[in-house]
């Protein structure tokens, strides 16, 4: 039996997740691992929007912000459990994406980029200006999820970093599995068709507007869940989660690894999450590196690192 590329991708992910902890010198690495998974989840959403459907968004951090602040605000205000708040946050992000996406997705290229950017900045502006509700630029506390205590009660003793490593990993696996399933489904094929040519796609009966809106809503939900996970894990949240730089980072992670492939994008998320950790000594060079990576990858490796490497290997093999 040969593995389909979908099964291979998931297997690689599971293996990396399960085996990496064997090499962790300290508990801190679980924390970095779970950050990679959270970013990977958000970036998987970008793969669906940008890689499959060819639409750019520079405002997806806005949805991460909605997800994060849902977990911070709903439990104290409405007495909702944080886990339910996460679901409600995702539903809210999805609805906002549906309403905003309808007009925005009629636009193309630069206009779409700027419109989505404007949306993201508006969200972060509201989060930092409505001090009475959100605590302003200083951010606010987020309640404990409480799931780890339940697991401990069942005899599954996990440290906090281990727990978040496992939970974020699980979310990423499910997210990647769904995204991979979407790829070959009728909806996924529709997205890839309109990526190639919207006119051609509509002549074969694809509702281009509806397909794009679907991709936008799905990717918003991914970003929202990632924002919630980040907030619950950090136990606090600031408006930066919805900021311009966060949106740019998401897109950069996706294109760095290869926005056309789920594994590639997660790989990109891994590199860009690790980079600041490795570069702590050179912290002031972080921005220079980020900008340089964005330019070099787009000029020389347009498909992203992983797909470019893969085609290089295939070229050698023949």
């Amino acid at each position: 039996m040969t593995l389909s590329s979908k099964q291979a991708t998931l297997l690689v992910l599971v293996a990396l997740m399960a085996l990496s902890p064997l090499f962790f010198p300290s508990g801190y690495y679980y924390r970095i691992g779970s950050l990679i998974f959270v970013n990977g989840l958000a970036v998987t959403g970008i793969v669906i929007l940008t890689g499959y459907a060819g639409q750019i968004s520079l405002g997806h951090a806005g949805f991460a912000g909605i997800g994060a602040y849902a977990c911070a605000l709903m439990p104290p205000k409405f007495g909702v459990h944080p886990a339910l708040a996460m679901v409600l946050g995702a539903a809210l992000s999805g609805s906002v994406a549906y309403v905003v996406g309808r007009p925005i997705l009629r636009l193309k290229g630069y206009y779409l980029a700027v419109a989505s950017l404007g949306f993201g900045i508006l969200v972060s502006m509201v989060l930092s200006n409505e001090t009475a509700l959100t605590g302003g630029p200083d951010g606010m506390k987020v309640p404990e999820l409480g799931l780890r205590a339940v697991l401990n009660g069942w005899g599954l003793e996990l440290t906090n970093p281990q727990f978040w490593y496992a939970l974020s990993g699980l979310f990423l696996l499910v997210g990647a599995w769904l995204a991979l399933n979407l790829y070959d489904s009728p909806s996924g094929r529709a997205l890839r068709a309109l990526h190639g040519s919207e006119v051609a796609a509509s002549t074969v009966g694809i509702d281009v507007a509806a397909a794009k809106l679907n991709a936008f809503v799905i990717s918003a939900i991914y970003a929202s869940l990632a924002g919630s996970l980040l907030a619950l894990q950090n136990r606090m949240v600031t408006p930066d989660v919805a900021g311009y730089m966060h949106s740019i980072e998401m897109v950069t992670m996706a294109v760095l690894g290869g926005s056309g492939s789920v594994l590639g994008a997660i790989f990109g998320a891994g590199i860009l999450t690790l980079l600041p950790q490795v570069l702590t000594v050179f912290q002031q060079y972080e921005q220079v590196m980020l900008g340089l990576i964005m330019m070099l990858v787009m000029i020389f490796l347009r498909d992203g690192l992983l797909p470019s490497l893969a085609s290089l290997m295939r070229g050698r093999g023949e």
Partner: protein
Amino acid sequence: MSETMQFLLSGITVGAVYALVALGFTIIYNASDVVNFAQGEFVMLGGMITVFAHQAGLPLPLAALMAIVLTAAIGVAFNKLAIETARGAPVVSVIIITIGASIFIQGVAQIVFDKQLHRFPAISGDDPIKLLGATILPQSLWVIAGALVIFTGLFLFFTKTLLGRAVLATSNNRIAAQLVGININFVMTLSFALSAGIGALAGVLITPITLVSYQVGIAVALKGFASAMLGGMGNPKGALVGGLLLGLMESLTAGFISSQYKDAVAFVVILAVLFAMPQGLYGRKSMDRV
């Protein structure tokens, strides 16, 4: 009444800067079909280089001139190294390249210069002038005069000189322009130099009023872009009108509605223009070739 007048005056000052930035967008867009998200960094460089050259002992006019020339050179280098090499790339890639350039230039600026806010002395001092019941800084008059000179100069350049017409021809149709013997590469170089130089000049003029730090570029770029879109992408007259309108809307919003949300005006304008009249006030209707 005098309050409203005050808001109008400050709106026109800021608007003149937005108009210059929008003009920079327009020139590059016409020459290369690229929307350059790094446009705001030219403004930042104009201010920062002048500050540091002045601190190093250069007289202010010389420092400003150096800033404009250096920034223009950076614009040309950006075109040669990034935009030309990536010619033919999909729009998404080009967007990421220019954003990457913007982040890169910011990163370099915070290493080469620093992270502080800076200013240098205004050209004609800081004593406000009374005007129609309100006051205006002499520097604001310099900003407005600078914008007027640039717009008039470029209008003459594009309509009266052979080189200017060559640039216009290139923006209309690259291949046709090449066929009649126009040196496209030179036109591109010229456009990036002009655009970056104009951005730097805007930075030099506005720094005594609004101060400059390595971070100011992004906000300026977005507002310049909003102005260019409001006026109609690719139209210099639109850039002027769009910039002034946006400046006025912003300062009236800050005055009468909420100063916290004055920066939101630009995005509301972008979204409103996109949905209501995507071609802007003076733009051409865009068509897709299948």
